[in-house]
């Protein structure tokens, strides 16, 4: 557009930025409250006079959290890392393979398979929760990390996302590979995957976030504290008869800190992923 910027437009632009700034403050406020409370004494948190900054920043709260024998914070953080990493890698690999198969390998009943996958997306998991638990425990995986990980490897949504993406993958690239004598696995691993890094990263990021934040399934499966994830450790604070407020908030800080880092580092892939699923092939 080549219109000369008029006065009203400049005012509009200023207003827009003021609105954005206010919105950003609102969106950041909950994070600030979390950190403020985590670094306060309980007395400061519950003081009748609300203060924006705690009078006395309690860095010791960090040490207190990790020293509390009732809540194995380090162990749960470690469990969460192991679970999220393994589950994410597995789910992305299995999902990408299936998504590619559905998008690119002609098969007479592919529609049936696809319909089944999409259909399961609509059933709320909470309602099939008990039979699933019974199945898993029949396999003897209660209180084990694999009991948390393995069921999370089969995510219909991941398959669906990959299928949509691969439908739009440039065929020319694959055909070039085929001319060079590659079969389906060769084309997939040597051509399709290396050319889809951003999308894979995007799916991996959201899978990772989901895995890290998963609550109910780990709560039920991880009965022994040695298999607790960080969300479960957090819930012990929340549900204890006696709540230690600052410790609760400090635990919450440590439960979202890794997510924030991963997220800030990888969010551009999500943005790209969203854009690429919509734009390619236009």
């Amino acid at each position: 557009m080549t219109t000369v910027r008029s006065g009203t437009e400049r005012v509009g632009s200023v207003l827009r930025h003021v609105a954005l700034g206010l919105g950003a403050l609102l969106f950041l406020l909950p994070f600030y409250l979390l950190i403020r409370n985590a670094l306060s004494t309980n007395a400061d948190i519950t003081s009748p006079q609300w203060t924006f900054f705690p009078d006395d920043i309690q860095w010791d709260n960090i040490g207190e959290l990790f020293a509390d024998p009732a809540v194995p914070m380090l162990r749960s953080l470690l469990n969460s890392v192991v679970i999220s990493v393994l589950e994410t890698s597995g789910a992305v690999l299995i999902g990408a393979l299936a998504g590619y198969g559905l998008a690119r390998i002609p098969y007479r009943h592919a529609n049936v398979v696809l319909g089944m996958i999409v259909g399961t997306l609509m059933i709320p998991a909470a309602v099939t929760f008990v039979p699933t638990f019974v199945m898993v425990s029949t396999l003897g995986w209660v209180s084990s990390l694999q009991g948390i990980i393995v069921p999370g490897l089969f995510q219909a949504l991941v398959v669906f996302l990959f299928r949509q993406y691969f439908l739009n993958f440039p065929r020319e690239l694959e055909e070039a590979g085929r001319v060079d004598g590659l079969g389906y696995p060769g084309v997939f691993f040597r051509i399709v995957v290396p050319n889809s890094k951003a999308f894979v990263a995007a799916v991996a990021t959201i899978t990772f976030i989901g895995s890290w934040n998963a609550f109910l399934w780990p709560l039920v499966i991880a009965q022994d504290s040695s298999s607790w994830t960080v969300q479960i450790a957090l819930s012990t604070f929340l549900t204890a008869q006696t709540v230690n407020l600052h410790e609760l908030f400090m635990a919450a800080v440590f439960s979202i800190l890794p997510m924030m880092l991963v997220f800030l580092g990888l969010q551009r892939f999500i943005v790209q992923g969203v854009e690429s699923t919509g734009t390619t092939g236009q």
Partner: protein
Amino acid sequence: MARAPLRHRLLGEQNRNLWFWVFVGPFVIGLMIFVLVPILWSIYLSFFEARNTVTPSLFVGLDNYGDMLSDPAFLSSLGTFVVFAAFIVPLTFVGSLGLALLVHRARFAKAFFRSVFFLPVACSYVVAAMIWKLSIFSGVRFGLANSVLRALGLDSVAWLSVTQPPWYWLVIVTLRLWLQLGFYMILFLAGLQRIPTVLYEAAAVDGAKPGWQVFRYITFPQLRTTSVAVLLLLLINAFQAFDEFYNLLANAGASGGGGYPPYARPPLVYLYYTALGNQQDFGHGSAGAVILALVIALFTVLQGRLLGFGRKEDRA
């Protein structure tokens, strides 16, 4: 003699059938074990009197369905969903579209604003509920919202405890808005980027005033596909709402058995908490679940029809 054609039929041209199953098989097997079988199991349970057991023997036909459909608490939970959806769907839609338009046209710090609005997406419902319940909308004097009210000379409000007026909706809805607005904003941003600039240039030539007119006649129609998808997802997600309700409103009842108030009790919470929870009544719980799944499917199809999702002849 017969082996060759059979083999050919099974494996397909260039072994395609074989390769299809090599790629898709691992997923399908997992899906069967961990998703399909439990779903079928639930459907099976819905036809039985099944208390404290998942291997029932007393077949009751459609009785459980009849009971659920005449259960006022279950029906009112569906009503709760309608109220929740009536708040959350339009608010998220307008809010995320508004944010997207603001960010899209920002001249400074565009990436910063996008990140800030997107960041809560990485936060868990558990943590968000904690902040909302204990810090912002705490009913006592040191809650942030009440401190603001006091500064304005108003009385404190017990946000989550009172039903008249139903302030709890404010807590529930703002929490979800904070968690999800950023994501839908990203969807709209992607949509906005796909709009060809040439359309705006043409509009300028035709004398459309920048602002509302351009939005009304160019931007919004061009976002139609995004809008349809966003609405569809918002509705399905609203139906499956559980976390924030559970974490905000569940309370410690007598003797350890938790309770959940009858208001703001969406269908999943009712099914999980009441039917599948301490009552261990899997027959009624499963029947309710099947009804819920059917209602979701119905809504999805209806909405798709209304919004023209999948209409082949409709060209953008």
